């Protein structure tokens, strides 16, 4: 019976295969079985006992490394595991990698110990090992805890603190954004919206509506104000903006102007038959987009932002048989013409409308299927 079995090398050599199995939450037995089966054909000399001892050792090392992986910066500044830069990056990348179906399930959970306990349901549903679900859950929680309070661009913050790749950092930033603002994404209506679409929307919202962001066409005065606010994070929505946004309902007075101009332009591009549909349901689109804006100063309404978009705009238009292609042409035109129309209004309203419209059109563009 083995009491102690340790192999320590002066250099840490990563076995990507075993690490992946570990990250995926497979048990030592499963991993041993997989490795043994794979190796059996071309190196039959090794007994299962030997393979098991190896896997146990690898798993042990990864468990020791895990503490460092929680704060990847420590992984870089430690002496104990000498490894190449490549290995470090690979370790971090694999450890923080996400499984989208699992993430989709976790998205609307609070990062509490109670929801951590409920992860087994997710595990069952997604057919992903519970350990892997827990790891992803913990990673999300850890990253959120770290960057929530940090000023500036969240994606950059994540990159700096967790040494993640651009792609992964953007995803984590989006998830954190959804989580911090409690955006409802698990409603049945939204089931058909993929995680990737949600991330894209979240990134768009952070970019256009986030507190830390400076809009490009902001006036000089605004710029100063925004500079003062730079200590804010783009993870938080710009409260001032949200308070102002209800003022854009003023444009309802100009619905007719919008309709004629937009429709006239769209008509030139889109063939007659679908155009009829678009023209007849323009009102739904216009009214809904304005009505969504009017509630955004209430956090309850922000929560249901994605639901509202689907319920009030996407679904009715789909019923009206707008195709995605036509829809995209439409919103592009709407944005163009709208900007032209609102420019004749009060400059503040104009800016607000533009900013609002950028966010909402971006989301609609991604979400409309």
């Amino acid at each position, binding site marked *: 019976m083995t009491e*102690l079995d340790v192999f*320590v090398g002066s250099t840490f050599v990563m076995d990507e295969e075993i690490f992946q199995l570990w990250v995926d939450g497979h048990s030592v037995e499963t991993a041993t079985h997989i490795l043994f089966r794979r190796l059996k054909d071309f190196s039959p000399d090794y007994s299962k006992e030997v393979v098991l001892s190896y896997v146990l050792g690898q798993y042990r090392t990864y468990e020791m490394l895990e503490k460092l992986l929680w704060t990847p910066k420590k992984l870089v500044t430690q002496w104990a595991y*000498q490894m190449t830069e490549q290995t470090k990056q690979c370790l971090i990348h694999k450890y923080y990698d996400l499984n989208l179906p699992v993430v989709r399930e976790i998205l609307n959970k609070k990062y509490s110990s109670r929801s951590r306990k409920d992860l087994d349901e997710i595990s069952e549903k997604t057919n992903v090992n519970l350990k892997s679900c827990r790891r992803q859950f913990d990673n999300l929680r850890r990253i959120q805890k770290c960057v929530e309070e940090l000023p500036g661009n969240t994606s950059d913050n994540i990159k700096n603190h967790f040494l993640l790749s651009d792609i992964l950092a953007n995803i984590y930033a989006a998830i954190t954004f959804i989580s911090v603002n409690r955006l409802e994404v698990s409603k049945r209506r939204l089931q058909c919206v993929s995680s990737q679409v949600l991330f894209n929307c979240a990134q768009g919202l952070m970019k256009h509506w986030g507190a830390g962001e400076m809009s490009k066409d902001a006036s000089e005065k605004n710029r100063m104000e925004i500079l003062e606010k730079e200590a804010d994070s783009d993870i938080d929505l710009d409260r001032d903006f949200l308070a102002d946004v209800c003022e854009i309902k003023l444009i309802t007075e100009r619905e007719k102007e919008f309709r004629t101009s937009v429709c006239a332009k769209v008509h030139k591009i889109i063939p007659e038959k679908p155009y009829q549909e678009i023209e007849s349901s323009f009102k739904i689109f216009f009214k809904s987009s304005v009505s969504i804006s009017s509630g955004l100063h209430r956090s309850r309404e922000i929560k249901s932002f994605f639901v509202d978009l689907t319920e009030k705009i996407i679904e009715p238009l789909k019923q009206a048989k707008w195709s995605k292609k036509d829809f995209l042409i439409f919103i592009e035109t709407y944005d163009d013409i709208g900007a032209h129309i609102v420019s004749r209004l009060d400059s503040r309203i104009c800016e607000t409308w533009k900013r609002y419209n950028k966010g909402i059109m971006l989301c609609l563009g991604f979400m409309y299927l």
Partner: protein
Amino acid sequence: MPGKVKVKIIAGRNLPVMDRSGDTTDAFVEVKFGSTTFKTEVFRKSLNPFWNSEWFKFEADDEELQDEPLQIRIMDHDTYSAHDAIGKVFVDLNPLLVPQSSISGVMEQSSNATGNATMLSGWFPVFDTMHGVRGEISIRVKVELFSDVSRYRQSSCGVRFFNSLSIPSGYKVYTICGFVEELVVNDDPEYQWIDKIRTQRSSNEARQTLFIKLSGEVRRRIGLKALELGGNAVIGYKQTFDLEGESGVVVRGIGTVMNLNRKQHFTDSLLTSAHSEQSSEKYGSPTNLKLVKLPVVKKKSSESDLSMIPKGISGSYEAHVSHISRQISGSQYMYGLQHEMPEYPFLTLSIYPRSFVVHIGGIVSARSVKLLDRITNPDEPETRDAWWAELRMEIRSHARTLGCTFVLGYTEQTSICDEVCILSASGTAAVVDFQQLEPQEVRTRNSSGSCFGMTSSFEKDKSFKDQRVKDSSTLPEAQEYLPCSPCHVPYARTTIPCPVKLARCNVCRKYKVPDVLLATIEVPKGVSVEGKGSLIQARVCRSKREYRGGGDSQAKEVSDALPFLEYELHRQLLAKLRVRGMNAIFGLNVAVSIGDKQLIGVATGTALYLSSLPPSRPPTLSGTGSKEDQLKVAQLSKKLMEYLIESREFYGIEDSTVKNLQENGEDDSDHSDLSDDEIPDLFIPGDAKDTCVLEIDDPSELDIASILADGRPPRTFYSCTTEKLPGLNWSRLESNYLSFTRVWQGRGAYSSQKQLDGCFNTLLQGLYFQLRKASPCLISGLKFSVDLPDEEIIQVTISGTASKLKEASFGQEANENKNIDGPLMFKLDEDPHFREKKPQAKMESHSKIEAAHSDHPVIEITPLSQVPGSRIDKYLGNLNFFFIRESTSIRECGGFSTLVASFISEVFAIARAHVAALGGNAMVSFTMSQYVLEHNSHKNQGQCLINASGDAVFLSDGSNEE
């Protein structure tokens, strides 16, 4: 007051959270040296404090500087209760005590007017015995030694220590002054009454500090002895801790004293002139010395250029040092005259310069069983000294019996169980030629009278030998050195007590060689080896009565059992050697471990085929009994033959039995006039005394099965205990892949041969499996050690290093081997497995080169004295660490294996940090011994003690191989 230590604490990082409520720490640092302590300010609420303290200054005398470690303790400030300890850093100042100039060999580095200021600076892991590494601290340490001319007489500052078992590369030996040993005994704090009331942390720390101090003391005393002998360095230095339990702790050190200098382009005669020029000017300024550099020199030494690598050493420095060493060697010469022979003619190195080893007599070993009693007076460690003296005398007389003057590759080991202790000493008896240490020009001069200390004593000794062994007068002392000479016996068959079969050397066909050669050292350079070497191991287990307090009877039983154990080991080893078709074992280590219920002996070495020795005959089986038995015997014989044929093919050895039998005829007629003895009756099969006959009483006996069960490594691996694989050119190694330590403990019965073999074979397979991605690779410097810490537990530790082989050079290597070592059958690239793994291996090595470690530099660690693919530019000092790690929450932190694994990694980490702080990038001759690995699963408790040491060096690209 010859030294000043200055310490500056810069910053800390990644410290643990000590204040749970605020998730922060209020850290400050205590710096202690000797009895003086300084403190930094408290840096509040930060896990990454920045103290940037003033320079704390300590004044100390030499003895303190050498014995005491600098102790840096990081604490968490607590206003209301006692401050909490975060961890400690121990800094051994010894590497700083060697004048910088003699480390680097570059004069300008010591241009500081005061002389020898050197610095150590870097991030050190903060270690706590209860929690392991907890963050890092950045410190700077300077030592200023005052130039004191008489300082060499007072203390041993400046004597350099090397763990390296070969002459450090880039250095030249002027004199080998002899063997040094020293031991210090002390009470072990663990066993003192105070330990019962102290916390574990303070008990561990007290123990750790004491052990470090004892180790410093041993080293200092050895240094003193070295100076007495006229040396300036101790090579092959080995330090061991004997934890005798109740009776205390013994720290032992052995080594070889030498007079070393950096290699340079000066011939001896020029040095003399340089000396005379400079003699009036003691410790002359560098600019003056530079004038001595003469351009003529290079031409003269062109021959030695091949073996010496000039490393931009300024010749001026050399003149400076040799000036000192000349004085010393002068006195050494006197010493040599007074004493005919050093007390113990032992050398602890295992790799020697070409032609240094004239003849190898064989392995000599001595063991004794002692009963430990309480060390009553630690200041007089006479008992232990006397014990070792007995053993050394025995070794010496064994060597003389073999007609040898020296013992090479000398080691000492102990195994302790309760009160009973086995002391073992072993080495390789040999005849050596000290003149071979000198460059060619000097050697010729030497014959005209000007010789160094040991050379003269060697000559004295030769006369002694002449009297004793008449036959040796025919030895080719004055003749040209033959490359096969080390294989020739230094004795006559009639003069030694044990029966030995002699044959005529197959290379020179002049002198006698034994049929089997065993040695603890590496294969001497130039000796022709056929095929490749292979790991060979014999294991024997003997059960004994359980220890019940009767120390005397226990000791007697052990001592009675030892000869049988050794005989059995020897028999097994030879049988395994035969079935491999080989005839010699080098790098052999025989270790006997004692436990409560059993004795385990393990002999590990590197088997190989020496061209000059007679080919080994296949082992024959002899069995008596029923027809059925005979049949089984026949079957087994067949299997043995198959194994032998496979082995030969595997290791690339030609079936030379055939070859030799053919050649033997001519051979006889050609040289019959030269042979002064009848041709030994070597080829008569079935000789009753022949060791290769395996007698079988019961064909089901597992003996043969065990021999056959010894798995060969997979095709893409070579493995050996020596630093270099015999038959494989060092230049074929590409890079150091990794060095490893494997510790395994098994519970249950490992008392039968089958179980024991199974256990070791599985461990070896595990090793190959671990390293499969490095293949094709060489696993060298393999060391096995067995401990029996508990009646039910067996602990096996394996350490070694894996080096990658260059792939491109396979074909080339085959040719190369053909020229030197004869035909080669073994071709790796024909192996399908190998081909399959090729791309993977390539990728791995590629990434290694690309590696740019963002923060810490890459520090290689290897148990070998060199790193493949690199060259040692500088030796930065010898480092020795002793650590204790304990945990009372084993289960919570992942089990005992996790504790041990993380502890070993941490020891690697600390070693690396020290090397980096000294400005090095590798640690060579690294050894790590696990002394105690105790686990009590009921109490959820575990404790480990580790001692590690090695030479910090600076490597640069390129090979060191001569």
